[in-house]
């Protein structure tokens, strides 16, 4: 039992926050709970604190919409909060698509798709292109371009406001990640992930690697959805400073040697030292 807890504590925590938030939103809509109302695009916390998706706000700005103070405050709160704890904490602890892509990834490993398809035919920088394209198209078309197609919003709305054909978006992502590209959506394409990754570059909560304890079993790299961020494993004692890291904690919990742990970002001096060591 303690073994299960040790090996899955962050996964359990993540599912708890993902499902818990969803329930709170559903309660907000159907039963009028005023803990959190709205959805991931924009919400109201405790009935008066605005929270807004800063990426949606950026698209609105590009599309030429008048931005309200409410929206600015809501976006700033979200930006600062994720900036402190690591931007892509949104991806691993909040986003409903995370469960879909995790399921696809799990099946991939279990069925052996990763063995027959070793070479990934796409670059992880696509998301930044999609991010830029979202803003350019928003400007040209005068609409919030990514919000018009976002499978995250579609799925989240389907959960809170009624399904309809909303499940198709999640299915498309699932099939894409399972059969076409490993970590395809979250790790390569999603511009929201790219956006939060950019915010999260300065995040304070970081995974720390201790090379002396590492036995190079590489379990961490196998479970990591952004395995390139663990380049230092078994080579060097470094903190994972890449914004693409989602702080999901899978590497920490699968490590049997206590070589990976959450830590607070080291002081600037030591960071520079680390970078010089590279």
């Amino acid at each position, binding site marked *: 039992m303690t073994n299960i807890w040790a090996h899955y504590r962050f996964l359990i925590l993540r599912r708890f926050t993902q499902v818990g938030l969803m329930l709170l939103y559903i309660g907000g809509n159907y039963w009028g709970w005023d803990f959190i109302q709205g959805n991931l695009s924009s919400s109201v916390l405790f009935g008066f604190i605005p929270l807004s998706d800063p990426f949606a706000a950026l698209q609105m700005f590009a599309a030429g919409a008048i*931005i309200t103070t*409410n929206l600015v405050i809501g976006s700033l709160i979200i930006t600062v909060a994720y900036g402190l704890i690591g931007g892509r904490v949104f991806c691993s602890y909040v986003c409903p698509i995370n469960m879909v892509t995790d399921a696809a990834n799990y099946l991939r490993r279990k069925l052996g798709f990763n063995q027959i398809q070793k070479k990934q035919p796409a670059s992880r920088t696509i998301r930044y292109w999609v991010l830029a394209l979202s803003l350019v198209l928003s400007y040209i078309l005068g609409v919030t371009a990514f919000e018009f197609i976002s499978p995250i919003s579609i799925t989240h709305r389907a959960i809170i406001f009624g399904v309809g*054909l909303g499940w198709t978006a999640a299915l498309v992502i699932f099939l894409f990640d399972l059969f076409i590209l490993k970590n395809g959506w979250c790790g390569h394409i999603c511009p929201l992930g790219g956006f939060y990754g950019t915010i999260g570059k300065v995040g304070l909560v970081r995974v720390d690697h201790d090379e002396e304890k590492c036995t190079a079993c590489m379990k961490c790299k196998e479970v990591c959805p952004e395995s390139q961020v663990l380049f230092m494993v078994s080579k060097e004692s470094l903190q994972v400073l890449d914004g693409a890291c989602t702080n999901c904690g899978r590497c920490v919990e699968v490590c049997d040697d206590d070589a990976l742990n959450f830590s607070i970002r080291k002081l600037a001096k030591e960071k520079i030292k680390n970078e010089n060591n590279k």
Partner: protein
Amino acid sequence: MVSDRRRFILGSLRSAGLVALGGLVWSAYVDEVTANKLILRPPGAIKEDDFLSTCIKCGMCAEACPFDTLLLAKPGDNKPLGTPYFVPREVPCYMCIDIPCVPVCPTGALDESLVTTNDVLDINKAQMGVAVVDTKNCIAYWGIQCDACYRACPLMDQAIHLKYEKNERTGKHAFLKPIVDSDFCTGCGLCERACVTKKATITIVPRDVVIGTLDDHYIKGWDKSDEKRLENAHAEITTTKRSERAAVDFLNDDIGGLLDD
């Protein structure tokens, strides 16, 4: 072997091509889905073009609506995804006097000032759409007595009034014909909901779709306020060359001459 230089050029070309491909497919979809102009928006909604850039699709308006009138567009609805709309034949807008759906909007896509008179919320100012009567199939226009829409209208005798006319066919009955006044109609849809025909013969249509606009050539000479539009009037000089031929010459042309023009 491929040189580094060639590799770089090909790589850049590939990225640019993929961006163009994605951008074209993406904008084609957006263009298609925004082409639907028959969408009824909540009260206080700003102009549709601005609405599409300003609505953040949070659903706060739909949550606030006590009658579950407002829906958020889902895949399969063929409307811009996540934006609020309503279907009056199913659930019309019940015109709450405190308009709970509007003040909760975080982005101003639903604008309180559009439904406010003298600093007080005024749902009667809403312009969600306008009712249009199908006078061929409306049974009141047949001479059968039905005033369902008239009685359902929250602005009775303003937005819908009944026009009494003699029924010449029977010689002793009256028509009670519903007439919509677009100056007052809010587009709430209570009439469409109440209509007794199988498919409603009074339907709500977005105002932009059916309300016409005038240029400065036509002015109500009997209306002082309308005459103000004359200030914008300007002369237009047409440049079509005057034909030198007599009218009779055209009569004598064969059909070929007409086609040539």
